[in-house]
């Protein structure tokens, strides 16, 4: 007797713990194999781009914190760079160096969260995640010391920083950076050779190099596919050219490679922070006389940074008033998410969760 099967559709999400937020996957299965997949998002849409058009340039800073809330510093940085580019506002050298420090610290914190959530998706229920959060906690403590908040920092300002480093910051940072390589090695030991993680993630969700480039993926998703493209070296901003660091790339483009790229990037970030700590120039951190209700000249500017998830860009159009005329965000995880269908086709349901975890989306940024 011939077994007749028919495809059926399943909604994963919007309220599902493995979707990393309010995110829905419409998946068409044949048995347990994925035949078609459609990401449905917008559940966290707050209209931040439109809200930005009604606010002054300084007030828009608070919106950028809330886009990619796991890397608020990088979001602040990209926006601030765009405004400074448009207005030609100088930044003191100390502020530039501290910006490097905080954005690399934020990269470590974000990657810790990404790896922990990815391992969590693999089924290692919360133990590795809690180890990662323990280290991330120390970084959020540092940020709290800097600016008084743990998640939505609002620390960078147009033309500098809101505060200089407090005196207790540098000893705490040094202690953290001294202990960090040991912890990263420990996670490497704990996770990278684990047969279960190999079996679940090696060869799963292979993103070919060409597809990664054509989908304009960026960040660890692109580098996992073997493309050595990092904005910190491809289009350097701040004073990244001064620092020595490597770009880790993957060989196969599978979920395991993306996970390993993130692990290696944390090591490289520690390297950058070590160099940046030694060469803090000192001096003021804020350009004087940056008006609170800043008026920028007519024109447009695009500034991008390498956020933990990829190329994060802010495109601003000014019409000479105190508000941006257009406030556009190029959100990396939104664009990386477009590869999800190609990655998941032919895999089982449990693998789709792993692939989604390896892309590392943040819904605040996808939906904006």
């Amino acid at each position: 007797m011939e077994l007749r099967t028919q495809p059926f559709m399943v909604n994963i999400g919007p309220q599902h713990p493995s979707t990393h937020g309010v995110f829905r996957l419409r998946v068409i299965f044949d048995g347990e194999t994925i035949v078609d997949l459609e990401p449905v998002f917008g559940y966290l849409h707050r209209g931040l781009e439109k809200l930005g058009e009604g606010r002054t340039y300084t007030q828009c800073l608070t919106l950028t914190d809330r886009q990619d809330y796991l890397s608020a510093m990088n979001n602040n940085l990209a926006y601030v760079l765009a405004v400074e580019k448009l207005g030609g506002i100088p930044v003191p050298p100390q502020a530039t160096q501290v910006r490097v420090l905080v954005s690399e610290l934020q990269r470590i914190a974000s990657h810790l969260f990404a790896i922990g959530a990815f391992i969590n998706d693999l089924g290692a229920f919360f133990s590795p995640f809690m180890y990662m959060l323990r280290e991330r906690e120390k970084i959020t403590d540092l940020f709290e010391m800097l600016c008084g908040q743990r998640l939505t920092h609002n620390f960078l300002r147009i033309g500098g920083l809101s505060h200089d480093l407090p005196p207790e910051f540098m000893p705490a940072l040094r202690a953290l950076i001294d202990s960090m390589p040991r912890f990263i090695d420990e996670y490497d030991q704990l996770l990278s050779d684990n047969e279960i993680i190999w079996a679940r993630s090696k060869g799963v969700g292979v993103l070919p190099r060409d597809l990664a480039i054509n989908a304009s993926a960026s960040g660890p998703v692109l580098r996992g596919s073997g493309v050595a493209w990092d904005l910190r070296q491809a289009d350097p901003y701040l004073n990244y050219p001064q620092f020595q660091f490597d770009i880790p790339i993957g060989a196969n483009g599978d979920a395991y490679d993306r996970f390993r790229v993130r692990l290696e990037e944390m090591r490289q970030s520690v390297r950058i922070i070590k160099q940046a700590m030694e060469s803090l120039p000192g001096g003021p951190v804020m350009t004087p006389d940056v008006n609170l209700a800043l008026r920028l000249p007519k024109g447009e500017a695009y500034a991008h940074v390498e956020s933990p998830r990829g190329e994060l860009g802010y495109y601003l159009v000014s019409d000479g008033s105190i508000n941006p005329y257009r406030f556009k965000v190029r959100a990396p995880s939104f664009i990386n998410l477009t590869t999800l269908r190609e990655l998941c086709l032919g895999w089982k349901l449990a693998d789709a969760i792993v692939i989604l975890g390896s892309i590392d989306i943040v819904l605040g940024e996808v939906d904006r």
Partner: protein
Amino acid sequence: MPTLERVSTKETRIGAGLGILKGMLVTFKHLFRAPFTVPYPEKRLPLPRRFRGYEFVWSRERCTVCLTCAKACPHGVIRIQSRLAPPESQWQAEKFEIDIGLCIFCGLCVESCPYDAIFMGTQFELANYQRGGLVRGIEKIQYNPATSRASDYSEHPPLEPGRLLLPKQ
């Protein structure tokens, strides 16, 4: 030319279970580590000096009702009514309300204040039974040497000279 580092070099499988044993070793080590967490309501971590807490501290003496804080606020949380006080015909705040339910604690009002009159607080437990309880009027935010605890976020000169706002970490 960027320097590269290939990450997935380990292609051959090591002996079955060896990787898991290596992982278990890390788990085993955690038996001998002190806990990192703190039993929260009983014990509290020291707050950083720049903490942006919810109860604002406002000085009637320093405030000139210039509305800069209200204009700097991204959400329009600060509501101010002013009047001319008769004897010296000086602008005084009649109503100075901060709606904590809408506040995002960005600190822009505190930073923008040209007269150093408003401070962030040091509290963070803002649960309330009613929405109205979240609106902090003059009687709640006005500086009171006995109860007010302002944070050092703004780096304004302290309201009471010689008194550190929060102990240094």
